[in-house]
């Protein structure tokens, strides 16, 4: 029931993910952040097996950091995507990671880009993409309303339309979503879309 989707706009890329951490029929928490900030200008939205997701994305993040220290310059988005795909491919016939990834990044001379990497290590450079059951609805919405060169407002509006579709049409729709953006100023959290707030603190007796 995990939903991750993303799109490329004018000088930026958005990645949206649900924030439920689920085990069988139990929702552990509804504010799990599944979009990792890989480095200053890259986002890695991942969905899949809980342990694999955290393990694999952290491993990629540390290797991207190591590259930067070794070489003095950061990896390009394309290079990071290919490295990630390579790691998935190497593990595939031994110990596959059950993780689907949308990698978004901003490079100074290329602009924003989005890569689709699924758990059997396919790699595609795309303008819009989605994973999970939610993809049936978000891809349909994006096919209808997406055009290249959208502004941030238009793109977030489209994202909200997708989230609305998922919430209303998916039988076990996740209640909360996080939206992250990457542009020339870097990768950062943009907004949360919450319909259930995690209650913290003991109930008053």
């Amino acid at each position: 029931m995990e939903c991750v989707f993303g799109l490329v706009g004018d000088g930026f890329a958005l990645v949206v993910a649900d924030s439920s951490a689920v085990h069988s029929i139990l929702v552990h928490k509804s504010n799990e952040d599944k979009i990792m900030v890989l480095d200053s200008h890259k986002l890695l939205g991942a969905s899949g097996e809980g342990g694999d997701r955290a393990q694999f994305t952290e491993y990629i993040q540390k290797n991207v950091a190591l590259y930067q220290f070794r070489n003095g310059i950061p990896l390009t988005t394309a290079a990071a995507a290919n490295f990630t795909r390579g790691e998935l491919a190497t593990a595939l016939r031994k110990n596959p990671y059950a993780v689907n990834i949308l990698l978004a990044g901003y490079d100074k001379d290329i602009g924003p880009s989005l890569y689709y990497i699924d758990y059997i290590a396919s790699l595609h450079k795309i303008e819009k993409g989605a994973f999970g059951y939610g993809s049936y609805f978000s891809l349909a919405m994006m096919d209808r309303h997406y055009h290249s060169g959208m502004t941030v407002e238009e793109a977030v509006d489209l994202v909200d339309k997708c989230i609305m579709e998922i919430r209303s049409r998916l039988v076990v729709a996740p209640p909360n979503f996080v939206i992250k953006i990457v542009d020339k100023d870097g990768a950062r959290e943009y907004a949360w879309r919450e319909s259930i707030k995690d209650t913290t603190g003991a109930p008053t007796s």
Partner: protein
Amino acid sequence: MARYDRAITVFSPDGHLFQVEYALEAVRKGNAAVGVRGTDTIVLGVEKKSTAKLQDSRTVRKIVNLDDHIALACAGLKADARVLINRARIECQSHRLTVEDPVTVEYITRYIAGLQQKYTQSGGVRPFGLSTLIVGFDPYTGVPSLYQTDPSGTFSAWKANATGRNSNSMREFLEKNYKETSGQETVKLAIRALLEVVESGGKNIEIAVMTREHGLRQLDEAEIDAIVAEIEAEKAAAEAAKKAPPKDT
């Protein structure tokens, strides 16, 4: 004695490990390097031997980042340094991956020293021919530290230290003139120590300053020249004051 420096694993009858001592000789021939710890700033400086005209000096970086909050300068065999620095960088990231915490300066120093020691107790390998000066801020308390390692694998913390060529003169100077400094004063102290043994001028010195907020910053030639000029002016003023005796006796 010639028989006892073949394989590193052999002690000489009077308890020396000659290969390690020869490695220390190699360090003594390397370029001068100095490190000074201030209250909020740590400075590393190395002597830059004159670069060949056709060489791209940007590719010869002697002060390097191991992580966002740790830097290293070394004296000795540069090729050995490359290998050691690579291993240290991997360890920094590996530590972050396994315990989700950045390394402390002491941890990575202990790791590097451990690596250097391993190569003094293995068959068929020679020790790393370099001593390192490792600086950084503790990731949580923000306390600055300066450590030194040498080819034998020993390490210890210092307020200020020097290694490489003429390190004894620099260390003497630092012992005489060290006091708790911060900010620009720490930079000046490091440069003054280096100037004891190196030809003055921004062309012959490489200086990097590490602060908690901004990490490691390499000073460019113009900045170094400016500070050197300040130091020379201060020296000249001190000389003049000494020569002119006070009027009222």
